[in-house]
């Protein structure tokens, strides 16, 4: 489907050679079909910015060869772009809030920073970003430290400020270094909207295909327009990993600023569960971005989201975080059991608490997922 490559191969040659070639191709197809049967496909689904691509990158780092030098260098442009875009967003956001908000004075930039702000905003609006050097880094840092920008950042849930903003702003000088090579963490924090479909094939136990399960993992875009492409991937999937960022209960969508992100996640989860081709598919729900959730729950109550409006805080500190998390988990489980038809009641459903940036946690989580899937396979094969 959609591949232009092999059409003309071998068809220019003589007939007998052609037959040999045809046989060869047939044999390979047979081999591959046999191999295909042992390959389990996993889908990473979820709304925009829920952490799917980060998990995808983690799997690549853990079970494949990771990133080579070239790939690491290619991420520099991405990281720099993130920096410019973030600072532009914050600057434009502060200007807007200064105009429209009731407490406009706290969003007004101090006069000495106005010029820097304009310049950075203009750079951020270009197509081709300049390389981040020390000078620009200092300017961005001064602007970041400005009070108005910090206040705007506190209102970041209304703007589309990426989650990596704080991390990159704190590490500006390292990023601006002439010989900068992105670390693993830098790459995991880098934010790029996914479009279309990306796939990798890996094996969680060593590199040998035969001793472990072979998985094929698909990563997709999460925005609304990307979802109509998902349907091409739905057939024959072993498991769906649904990523839900629990920390965006107070944020709005990138593609529709009138909808709350958590409500969109809820609707999407319902939609995915109702799909007829997923009747026998295992569902792994990753309640992602727990680190941000921890910090946010103490400042912003869960009730701001319609779905969680019956939440009652009980205490403070760690207990509160756990209580809030359990509440959210319960909500998702309730939704699952409400939607699941009696026919698919025996499909596997597991909930995991994840922070996609934490490699150890993801490795552990994935091992659990792997185990669940293997157990299910044995069960289906009748051996358990």
């Amino acid at each position, binding site marked *: *489907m*959609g*591949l*232009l*490559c*092999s*059409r*003309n*191969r071998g068809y*220019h040659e003589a007939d007998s050679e052609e037959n040999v070639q045809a046989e060869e*191709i047939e044999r*390979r*197809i047979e*081999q*591959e*079909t046999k*191999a295909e049967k042992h390959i389990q496909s996993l889908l990473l689904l979820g709304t925009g910015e829920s952490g799917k691509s980060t998990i995808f990158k983690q799997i690549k780092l853990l079970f494949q060869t990771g990133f080579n030098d070239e*790939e690491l260098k*290619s991420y520099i*442009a*991405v990281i720099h*772009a993130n920096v410019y875009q973030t600072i532009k967003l914050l600057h434009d956001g502060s200007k807007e809030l200064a105009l429209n908000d009731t407490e406009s004075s706290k969003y007004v930039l101090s006069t000495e920073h106005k010029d820097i702000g304009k310049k950075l905003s203009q750079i951020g*609006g270009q*197509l*081709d970003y300049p390389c981040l050097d020390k000078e620009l880094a200092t300017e961005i840092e001064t602007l970041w430290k400005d009070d108005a920008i910090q206040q705007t950042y506190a209102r970041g849930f209304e703007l*589309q400020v990426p989650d990596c903003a704080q991390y990159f702003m704190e590490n500006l000088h390292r990023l601006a270094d002439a010989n900068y090579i992105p670390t693993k963490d830098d790459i995991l924090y880098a934010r*790029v*909207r*996914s*479009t*279309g*479909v*990306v*796939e990798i*094939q890996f094996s969680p136990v060593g590199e040998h*295909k035969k001793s472990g399960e072979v998985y094929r993992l698909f990563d997709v*875009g999460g*925005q*609304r*327009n*990307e979802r*109509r*492409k998902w349907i*091409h*991937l739905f057939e024959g999937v072993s498991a769906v990993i649904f990523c839900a960022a629990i920390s965006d209960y107070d944020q709005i*969508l*990138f*593609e*529709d*600023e009138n909808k709350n992100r958590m409500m969109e996640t809820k609707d999407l989860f319902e939609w995915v569960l109702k799909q007829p081709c997923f009747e026998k598919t295992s569902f792994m729900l990753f309640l992602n971005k727990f680190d941000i959730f921890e910090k946010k729950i103490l400042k912003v109550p869960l009730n701001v989201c319609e779905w969680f409006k019956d939440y009652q805080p009980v205490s403070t500190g760690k207990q509160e975080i756990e209580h809030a998390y359990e509440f959210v988990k319960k909500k998702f489980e309730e939704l699952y059991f409400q939607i699941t038809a009696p026919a698919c009641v025996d499909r596997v459903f597991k909930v995991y608490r994840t922070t996609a940036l934490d490699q150890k946690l993801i490795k552990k989580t994935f091992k659990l997922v792997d185990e669940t899937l293997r157990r299910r396979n044995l069960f289906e094969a009748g051996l358990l």
Partner: protein
Amino acid sequence: MNAKKKMLIKAFWSKEYAQWIASTRDFYAVILPSLRKLQACFDQALDEHHGGGNQLAMESYGKKKLGEDFRLWKVDFDQEDECGICLEPCTKMVLPNCCYSMCTKCYRNWSTKSESCPFCRGSLKRDFSLTPKALLECLLPTAILPFEIHCSRFSPAVGGSESGSPTAMAGCAVEGGCPSDYIAIAISGLSVVVLLSRSILPFVVHKVSRKKGSGFWIPMIQVLASINLVISLVMSVSYLRFKKRHPWQSCYIWAVWIEGPLGFGLLLSCRIVQAFQLYFIFGKKRLPPLRSHISLPLFLLPWFALAALIHMREPLNDHCHMRAQWVVPVICLHAVFVGILVAFTAAIRHIEFRFNELRDLWRGILVAASSICVWITSYVLNRVHEEIGWLQVLSRFLLLVTTGVLIVVVVSISSSQPLLSQISLRRRESMRCKTMGQVLGIPDSGLISHNEANSAVNPNEPLEKLLLDKRFRQSFMAFADSCLAGESMHFYEDIHELGKIPPDDSIRRIYMAREIIDKYILAGSVMEVNISHRCRQEILTTPDMAHPLLFDNALNELLQLMKMNLARDYWSSIFFLKFKEETSKGPAGHELEQVSDCSFSPRLSSIHGFDDPFRHEHLSEL
């Protein structure tokens, strides 16, 4: 007296009463007292109270609307009789079954104590068999009982049955079933078939995919409305000879509801909505402020209101004809809507449309206006010369034929989907579906020119520079399509074509911009692109659709997306390798086998593609 009685009874059953929809209440209120008069006053003049003949009296009663006020029914009775119970002179009630009478007060007292008649012990319960025999047996001093009368009205069928009517039916002129009627039905059926084939043709034969949104639905609703109009005319005007016995055959459904709000009204409202959209898009250069799913019901409101009013007042007779005072508002509403269509069309008459929208609109207006004229003339002539049979037949024929012509001409898809209107079975060269760019005559659309220099492509150059090269663009687009991210590149391509239109040619720019918005920007569209909410709203609420920088922000966002996301994977994909090889001077074809040991990171190896040689090699390495 017998003669007078007979005359009265005959009058009662005559055609006037047959056409008069009477209720039991009316019967008790009017007929029975009058008959009682006849009985009681052998010597007295019949028109003591009412003046004029009996027939006239009954008619005047028949036309009064009687309400719940029982006193109205009591006032006309003679005061000479006494109540059989209290022996007081009073106005009386009569029991319907046994026709004994008593005064109101006594009746009330009695009914609380017993359920049987005080005189004959018969049951007080209502017996609704109002046969003429029962009527005749009940010719006694009368009054009305204060029961709530629950009964059904005489059905129009009984009232309107031809069996008792004295006037002779002039064959098929009134009843329907003339040969010309069948011919007219055939012609209108043919026009419906032509209409259907014209609208369904692109989807069935040319397999064009259905566009989402109002561009698809408005023409379909027009087709539906046309079919409704034709069927409503066939059912309500007497073309076919059938008796209206079932409730679904009632005149009100067909002649009022389906002809008006769901037929002619819907058809014209859709056309008005289309003209309204054209006015905003080409006249004011912005998207219409009211979406069509709000403006269409808005235009239909007067039709529904009028239909509801007619339904409540019920002025239709069994031939589905209305009196002049009802026909006038109906025709006025028809004419007003044609007038609104004229107004919108006149407002955009100076614009040079490219898909004959204006011609379609004028044609539709002309035919609609002439149809209304034909309807008015035929109605007037039929009223004036009711007895001329051939006039009725001719006017019926003309009515249906003009409606057939109307529906074929008025329904137009050129306003909503200009490209589809280009497709026609007759012309061979338009069998292929062209793009908007090709139709608008944008130079170099869709053709790969072979004159471009074979320069090597440098991956370090920014993507936007590289995309200016047509062949690179094609290759990149193919790659993007293969991993299901192609809409961004198609968008880029269309914006590129838009950029080729000179800025002062606003009509062509608007056509292209509208096409781009329908295809890429509207939520839920087929190739919706991944842009932010702000960007989308900026485009949809723009005050100037012909602005050269309308899609600039969206294009920037998408280029950023492609740079960060797709470009990295492109350089290591087979598409780039193929492109390099095509632009290089070396022989093409067999070099594919040599590149198998390049570092190869497939973005998407395949979904169903077993014929990928690189996948085979990749697997064999494992």
